[in-house]
């Protein structure tokens, strides 16, 4: 009886062993590698198109001799034991923008076995050039808007560590000038004085954008300084032992008068005035000469002027740090639309309080960063009567001028006119499938 049991056990063991060996089928070590057909195919397509010959051929008429040349070139390129299928697909876009691929032509020299792989290449017709042309700011509303960039050689910057106002001016000019009909560099504080007087003969002072590249410092013309011909519009001798908060009040008033958009690219707006000729011996307490601090009263005075309020010396600090802030959805969309991609996460050390909107009758537009602790790290504040605006980006140094660009473009929202790169007849998808004959 036990013998029978033992035989049963043996039968069970052998059966189990047989079954497991049937299932545990491993590939042969020699099958660990076959020719990497996909990369061979990709490199074949790319080298054939290296001088644009492939692109030129696939857009030719199907009866053109070039197809025969291409077929011979492919046959001569690939190893003898390799077969291929070369296919060209035309891209067709319907009215809703949905792209479909239609087989245009296929060339093959044999049937495929089991081992094959395919690579693809998108080619563009040599007759098509991809272009994009921005609409000029103000074009849609009939305004002639000039971009004035402060590039004063007699001014120093602060909170723009690593840059100078002049270098930022050049970069911003490159970045933004395509969007404006006229871009003017204000090369001295004297020219800035002329701009404030509307006596600068270049550009259109009405509805202009004034871009201050000097960070927390703002260039001030000599005549607005103490003892100057317009010191009453620039200098307040009474408060704080004499302060230039009055100058910022004037700037705010002029901004409203001419319907400017004043742009502060980084930090606490209107914190210093700068004129390297006048403030030769003054420095900003951090060793940067040629400037004098106005501190917290500066931005308050500007907003008073913008709101057409009388000048009143106010040292209330309306900016503060809020840490890391992130782009709004609108800002992210603008980055994609305009092709400008700064980091969506930034650190704000000078975010303005949201209460300025009610205190100075401002309307917040084009908000770059989501609000944090009821503070605005980057936005354009438009006066509610429609005249004048302040774009303030209260980030920490070092400035990223791409954020300034995004802020301005969000505010003015110029259209980008792009040529249809993926439209029917301009792009084709080429695939090359390779297969090996005779095993690996």
């Amino acid at each position, binding site marked *: 009886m*036990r013998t029978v049991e033992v035989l049963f056990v043996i039968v069970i063991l052998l059966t189990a062993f047989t079954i497991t060996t049937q299932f545990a089928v491993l590939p042969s070590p020699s099958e660990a590698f076959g020719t990497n057909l996909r990369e061979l195919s990709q490199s074949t397509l790319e080298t054939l198109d290296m001088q644009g010959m492939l692109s030129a051929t696939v857009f030719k008429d199907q009866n053109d001799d070039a197809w*025969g040349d291409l077929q011979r070139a492919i046959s*001569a390129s690939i190893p003898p034991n390799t077969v291929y299928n070369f296919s060209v697909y035309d891209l067709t876009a319907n009215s809703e923008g949905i792209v479909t691929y239609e087989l245009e032509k296929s060339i093959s020299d044999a049937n495929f076995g089991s081992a094959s792989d395919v690579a693809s290449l998108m080619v563009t017709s040599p007759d098509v050039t991809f272009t994009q042309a921005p609409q000029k700011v103000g074009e849609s509303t009939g305004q002639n808007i000039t971009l004035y960039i402060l590039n004063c050689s007699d001014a120093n910057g602060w909170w723009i560590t690593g840059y100078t106002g002049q270098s930022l001016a050049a970069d911003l000019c490159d970045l933004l000038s395509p969007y404006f009909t006229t871009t003017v560099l204000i090369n001295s504080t004297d020219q800035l004085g002329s701009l404030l007087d509307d006596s600068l003969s270049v550009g259109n002072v009405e509805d202009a954008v004034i871009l201050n590249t000097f960070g927390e410092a703002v260039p001030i013309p000599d005549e607005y300084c103490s003892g100057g011909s317009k010191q009453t519009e620039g200098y307040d001798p009474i408060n704080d032992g004499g302060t230039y908060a009055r100058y910022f009040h004037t700037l705010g008033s002029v901004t409203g008068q001419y319907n400017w958009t004043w742009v502060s690219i980084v930090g606490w707006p209107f914190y210093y005035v700068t004129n390297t000729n006048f403030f030769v011996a003054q420095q900003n307490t951090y060793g940067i000469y040629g400037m004098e601090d106005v501190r917290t009263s500066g931005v308050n005075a500007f907003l008073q002027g913008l709101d057409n309020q009388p000048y009143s010396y106010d040292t209330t600090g309306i900016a503060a740090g809020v840490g890391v802030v992130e782009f709004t959805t609108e800002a992210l969309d603008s980055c994609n639309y305009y092709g400008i991609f700064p980091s969506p996460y930034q650190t704000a050390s000078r975010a303005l309080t949201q209460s300025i909107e009610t205190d100075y009758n401002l309307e917040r537009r084009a908000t770059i960063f989501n609000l944090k602790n009821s503070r605005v790290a980057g936005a354009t504040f438009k006066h509610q009567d429609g005249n004048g605006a302040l774009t303030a980006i209260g980030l920490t140094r070092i400035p990223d001028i791409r954020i300034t660009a995004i802020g301005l473009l969000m505010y003015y929202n110029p259209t980008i006119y792009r040529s249809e790169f993926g439209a029917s007849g301009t792009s084709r998808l080429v695939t090359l499938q390779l297969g090996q004959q005779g095993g690996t």
Partner: protein
Amino acid sequence: MTGATIDHMVSVTILIAALMIAMLTYSNMFATAVDYDRNRQVANKAIDLMNTICLSPGNPTDWGETNAPVLGFGLQDPRVEGYALSPYSIMRLKTSTSDSQLIEYPPDSGIFYNNISAQFGDSILTPLGDCVNYTSAAELLGVNGTYGFSIDLAPVLDISIKKLPASHLVFEIDVKGSGLPLSFATLNYYLFHIDAGVATSTIITYSGTEETDLSGSKVIEFTDLDGDETEAFHFMVYARLSGLSGVGYYSQDDLQGYPQYIVPLISDYDEGIILIAHSWGVHEYTETPVPDVAYNATFYSLTSDFHLQQIEIENSTGQLNYGSKDYETTQLPASEVGLLVISYRWANRLGSVVLPWGIGTLGVSASYSSGFGSSDYDFVATELRQVTIDGVSYQVKVSAWKLGS
């Protein structure tokens, strides 16, 4: 009781036998799996190496055009990108696998040159001190001591040129790729015919465009030239069809039993300095009398549509004699790929030599390996890609194998 003991003994015996069979079988399976896994690693390494070599220019990116040390290995042409290899980086590879292949010049100077051979007589001789040897490349690729590898570069198109017997100079050109004839390919041909001047030689250029027939052949005739054995010339053909291109050449000298008189050596990559050396100092020939050679050097840059444009160079003519004037220097435009064609004459003997500045311009093949080969290893993975060098179509094969047991 005895029956139970026998039962147990039988069952234990059979159980042990079953276990042994199972262990034997499974150990074979495990060995197979381990082999498969190891081979897979080698195969992946081959792909990694190929990607690094073909799709990275290395560091610095222009290391092939300078004498600078190489910090990262890659052969991609940084000016073209994609599957295009730098013709200069390849020239800086120490392709010689033994010291006997090196050339020492001047003799006993301790200055050696690596030799990338083209056809007989034509070669690229590069200063060994600036070449990247196999061990350095393996270290830079991170495989030194773990994997062996080799790189083989060969033109896709095989362009064979034969001189046909005739009363004038006639060539038959056959263009093939992967064993198939390349029919209706455009041929740009150049004949650098060496004419004897008063005391020197001159290079007369004949050029034209033709097309191969259905069988990939074409006969090109020069009815003004005799083409007999007393003539010297270099005949070049660039073939192209729908993005595929190749180059072939044929040369003939009339040196009446002497070896070639002139050998060009690359002295400085950065500056494109070339030594035009008397070959008795390079190869230590002993034939006498020693030729008093008059040479005439011309540089032709290769344009993207496979035309050659002549560029003036310094010291384009001169006289060399071994012992009194061993070499002359000239400078090529380092950023232009092309051909330095040097004709030479001694008495009534004429010859020529070509230095390709960029290996693609002459369709030179190259191999880069340790010299020990992979024949001792069970599994060698190979990776194949198409590339261009100087616009000429090449195939790159990278082989990799696991070192050690």
